[in-house]
């Protein structure tokens, strides 16, 4: 008799189907616009634009997959890589939810809580953006008000300040080395800034794993 599929296996099966289906839709969009308006890309500009964009973003995309999938859980990964805003929204949301629910990220409970948090976050984002698009005319002057600029500019520090208190206080010993390294790198290497922080996430992750392994082997954790 065939063994019934586990919850996790079914998440992987459904995640693949949904992921490939949405990928297909995304590719169909430019094709449909071409057909409907009888317009084709300007090949030289397309090639130039791609050369300036794709190599870097493909490299970053591949690194992000290996960095974030282990942290997001299965359901969370399939959803996050479709809706985006992983490091500034989905992952913090899942981390906070797992912390509040007191579940471990690598347990089935963690998988479920993180999926619920990320799904809700994706739905709320999508709905808010839909409402914003409908109301774009009256909302634009408010959203573009210069007085609000600094608040949106500083979203990441405001987010990670709170998140750091929770995680650093729970892992004091382990957090010292990576924080010192990252502060030193960002302060003294001028090339590191808001645009390059995404590339530094895997560096931070690998370094912290190395430190954790050494401390674990020495019985310090």
């Amino acid at each position, binding site marked *: 008799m065939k063994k019934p599929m586990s919850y996790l296996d079914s998440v992987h099966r459904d995640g693949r189907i949904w992921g490939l289906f949405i*990928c297909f839709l995304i590719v169909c969009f430019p094709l449909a616009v071409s057909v*409907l308006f009888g317009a084709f890309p300007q090949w030289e500009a397309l090639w130039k634009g791609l050369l300036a964009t794709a190599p870097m973003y493909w490299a970053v995309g591949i690194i992000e997959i290996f960095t974030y999938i282990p942290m997001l859980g299965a359901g969370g990964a399939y959803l996050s890589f479709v*809706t985006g805003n992983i490091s500034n929204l989905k992952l913090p949301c899942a981390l906070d939810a797992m912390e*509040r629910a007191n579940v471990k990220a690598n347990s089935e409970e963690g998988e479920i809580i993180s999926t619920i948090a990320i799904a809700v976050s994706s739905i709320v984002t999508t709905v808010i953006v839909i409402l914003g698009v409908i109301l774009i005319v009256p909302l634009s002057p408010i959203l573009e008000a210069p007085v609000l600029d600094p608040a949106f500019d500083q979203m990441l520090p405001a*987010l990670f300040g709170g998140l750091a208190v929770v995680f650093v206080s729970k892992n004091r010993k382990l957090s010292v080395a990576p924080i010192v390294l990252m502060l030193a790198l960002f302060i003294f290497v001028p090339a590191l800034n808001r645009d390059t922080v995404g590339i530094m996430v895997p560096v931070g992750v690998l370094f912290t794993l190395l430190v954790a392994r050494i401390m674990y082997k020495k019985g310090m954790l």
Partner: protein
Amino acid sequence: MTFHVNHPILYVLVGIIIAAVLAQSVYFLVRAMRRAKEIGIDSAVVRKTITSSAIFTIAPAVSVLVGVVALSKSLGVALPWLRLSVIGSLSYETIAAGNSIEALGMTFGDQITDPSAYVTVLWVMTIGIIIGLILTPLLTKRIQGGMKKIENRDKKWGEILTNAMFLGMISAFLGYVFCDVSLAFTGDFTGLIPVCVMAVSAVVMAICGLLATTCKQHWMNDYALPISLVLGMASAIPITAWLS
């Protein structure tokens, strides 16, 4: 059909894709809630997860909306709506759209009127982000299988491993907060703005934690992250005025 960046048909096409993305999220949400019930996760915990995740998402979602407004000047509303609802981030989309508009010999900010220019921008933006969409379905099971193997070999190390990854990510962002502090030595204090905002948010988080435990206001714990996020963002307004 005469092309316009805000042609109704573009909204219909984008609407179909957004509906599929919403359906996927709802599908996974329902599946996870059912499974939660099956394995006995308290329904109060599920309810709290839903409400606190929803509230936490509001401020970042509004900042996504700001991105849609910013990009809509060149590209109309439909394309930024799609690109920022599916995978995109404002920084990526601005660079991708900027690169392709530049390659077309146009200036970023001018509205695109030529359909072939629009299709060119569309393809550059789509091909640029497609890698994550293709590889996630192909690699997720394998990557997570690898993690499970490590955990099965040594359960304690498995727990430390995921915690270490989270800390690694958080430390990178903490580092970024300090990236411009050295400007203070040249008399430019704007580099201290993110540091002060982070400090405000951290203090608010700590106060929420204290109130939750000492005054038995446990609801505070569930909303501590959105509260610290919004107050941190709000504090950026006077702090920026002060330090600029």
